[in-house]
């Protein structure tokens, strides 16, 4: 506990010395305050090249992701959308030999700076995965509180209860599970499990929420529930969502980015990003138009 705190302080000192707009400014505003002021952080990628070993998977992405907006990333399979998404919270480097070149700035601070602890980066930039993955050994309550409990945050039971309820309500799951919080999470349906995973990710109050095809394992009704949820979550978080479903991108996002590859084996490139409306009605590039109109892909 002490150790992590000290580490965090050192980290902050580093960051503050390095740049004026530090990302880890203590103390965090309380949850209520944040809902009112509601200013999450922006992400800027600068000349980001993403590698698996020697293989360049995504080339030269420079993009600004706006705070408190939903940015959707579309493109055909294998074009690097998920890879790009995972490089935004340093999950990419968990794969053997995977690494990146370039910068990813969270409100101006490079998350790939040598002094940055990837663990602290991931506490600020949460993630929801394609397959719902609640911890099978834990109850619904424990799953929701997992981010706090696993990091051994000292916290009163009442405080923890409040956070769990708030997160589950935030994920539109509270009414369905409030009577069985101590039951295993594996008893929930797929859609409920995914909302539980969203509650779990939001319980640690990240700045940014990355979603990697969060609805591709769900039925249309569960998908609709998640999309409603995304629309509400953007009041509190910056959201980046990867999707294969173009209607979903059109329905749920404010901005849409299109990844493309020339041919198999080439790196993926973010060739166009703009207002969702423009991408789907009047994109500037022919490739984008072909893709969104269903002419290929």
């Amino acid at each position, binding site marked *: 506990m002490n150790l992590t705190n000290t580490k965090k302080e050192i980290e902050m000192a580093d960051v503050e010395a390095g740049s004026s707009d530090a990302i880890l400014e203590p103390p965090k505003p309380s949850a209520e305050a944040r809902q009112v002021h509601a200013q999450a952080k922006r992400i800027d990628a600068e000349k980001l090249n993403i590698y698996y070993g020697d293989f360049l998977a995504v080339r030269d992405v420079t993009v600004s992701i706006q705070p408190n907006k939903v940015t959707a990333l579309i493109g055909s399979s294998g074009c690097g959308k998920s890879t790009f998404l995972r490089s935004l919270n340093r999950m990419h480097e968990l794969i053997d030999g995977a690494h990146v070149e370039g910068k990813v700035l969270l409100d101006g601070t490079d998350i790939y700076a040598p002094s940055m602890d990837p663990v602290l*980066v991931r506490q600020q930039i*949460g993630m929801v*995965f394609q397959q719902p*993955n609640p911890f099978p*050994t834990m109850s619904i309550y424990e799953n929701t509180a997992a981010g706090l409990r*696993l990091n*051994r945050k000292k916290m009163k039971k009442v405080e923890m209860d409040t956070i769990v309820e708030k997160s589950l309500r935030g994920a539109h799951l509270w009414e369905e599970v409030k009577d069985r919080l101590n039951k295993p999470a594996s008893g929930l349906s797929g859609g409920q499990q995914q909302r539980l995973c969203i509650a779990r990710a939001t319980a640690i109050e990240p700045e940014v929420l990355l979603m990697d095809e969060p609805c591709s394992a769900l039925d249309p009704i569960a998908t609709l529930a998640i999309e409603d949820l995304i629309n509400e979550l953007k009041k509190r978080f910056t959201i980046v969502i990867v999707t294969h479903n173009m209607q979903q991108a059109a329905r749920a996002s404010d901005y849409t980015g299109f990844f493309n590859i020339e041919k198999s084996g080439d790196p993926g490139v973010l060739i166009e990003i703009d207002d969702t409306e423009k991408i789907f009605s009047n994109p500037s590039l022919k490739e984008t138009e072909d893709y969104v109109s269903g002419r290929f892909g």
Partner: protein
Amino acid sequence: MSGSAVSVPLGDNSGVLPRRATLIVFAASAIASALISLALGLSPFVWLLFTGLIGLAGITVWSLAVEGRRRALDRVMSVAIMEVFVLAMVPLLSLIYTVVSKGLARFDSEFLTSSMRGVLAEGGGALHAALGTFIITAVATVAAVPVGVLAAIYLVEYGKGRLKRSITFFVDVMMGIPSIVAGLFAFALFAIFFGPGIRLGVMGSVALAVLMIPIVIRSAEEMLRVVPNALREASYALGVPKWLTVLRVVLPTALAGIVTGVMLAVARVIGETAPLLITTGSTTSTNLNPFDGRMANLPVYVYQQYKFPGVPPEPYIERAWAGALLLIVIVMVLFLAARLIARRYGVEIRR
């Protein structure tokens, strides 16, 4: 059938045998071979053999006549596999039957509550040996489980490159160590410090730990590997450091499997005789301190009673069988406990 449908021959014969055809054939075959055996005065084993052969032949002929080649072949294969399974069970059942029937004579309260102290012929028991077995195995387990589980965690979660490959290789090598060699290793190790001729309970534990470690590593490795990567990623994405992820997500998920593996490893080494013979020695009285002097244990007890009977030999032989029965009972209980733990606390892992 409408007029346009073309009839396609799907098989060489369209008949089907009644639902319990196999059962009927084998019941008839059992009765027939019972009559033959009784008439010729043959043993029950030969009767079983006849039942199997006649039944197989019967179902083949009947199915071939009614159902055709394809289904007959299917029946022949199913029945043959079933019979081979029964054949494989024969030694096990015969062993259990022999041990139980011969061991029950002395499997009484005196046997379970007294040692061999001052016993010259009849009476006496195996309490000292049972306690010795528990202590020696428990110490071995306490030594082997941390080493084994930590090694498995290293191999699955952290290891890479040459070190990982060489550890995997040496675990394989350790797997193949004959148990007597493990005993000699423990003997030689302690002889360095205490001189030759030393006999201690803990020496036996060291020998058994050497045998247990590779088994524990293998099973724990297997269990850690089936923990879905998605759970690790979920934990990392919550900003949980790797060591906490391993400790609080991966290990709890794999726990039931690891416990089962440990139980099976214990059951595997609890009956080891050779390494204990040269490391723990044997005594007639109860010794509860593994660091002080010889220590009796069940496998060596059984060996001693059977190999060096006094006069008359019967009580010794009976004690040997009762000791063997006790050992089998302990192993069975461990196996059942392992299954129970796996079933009750096992986490359903979706892939």
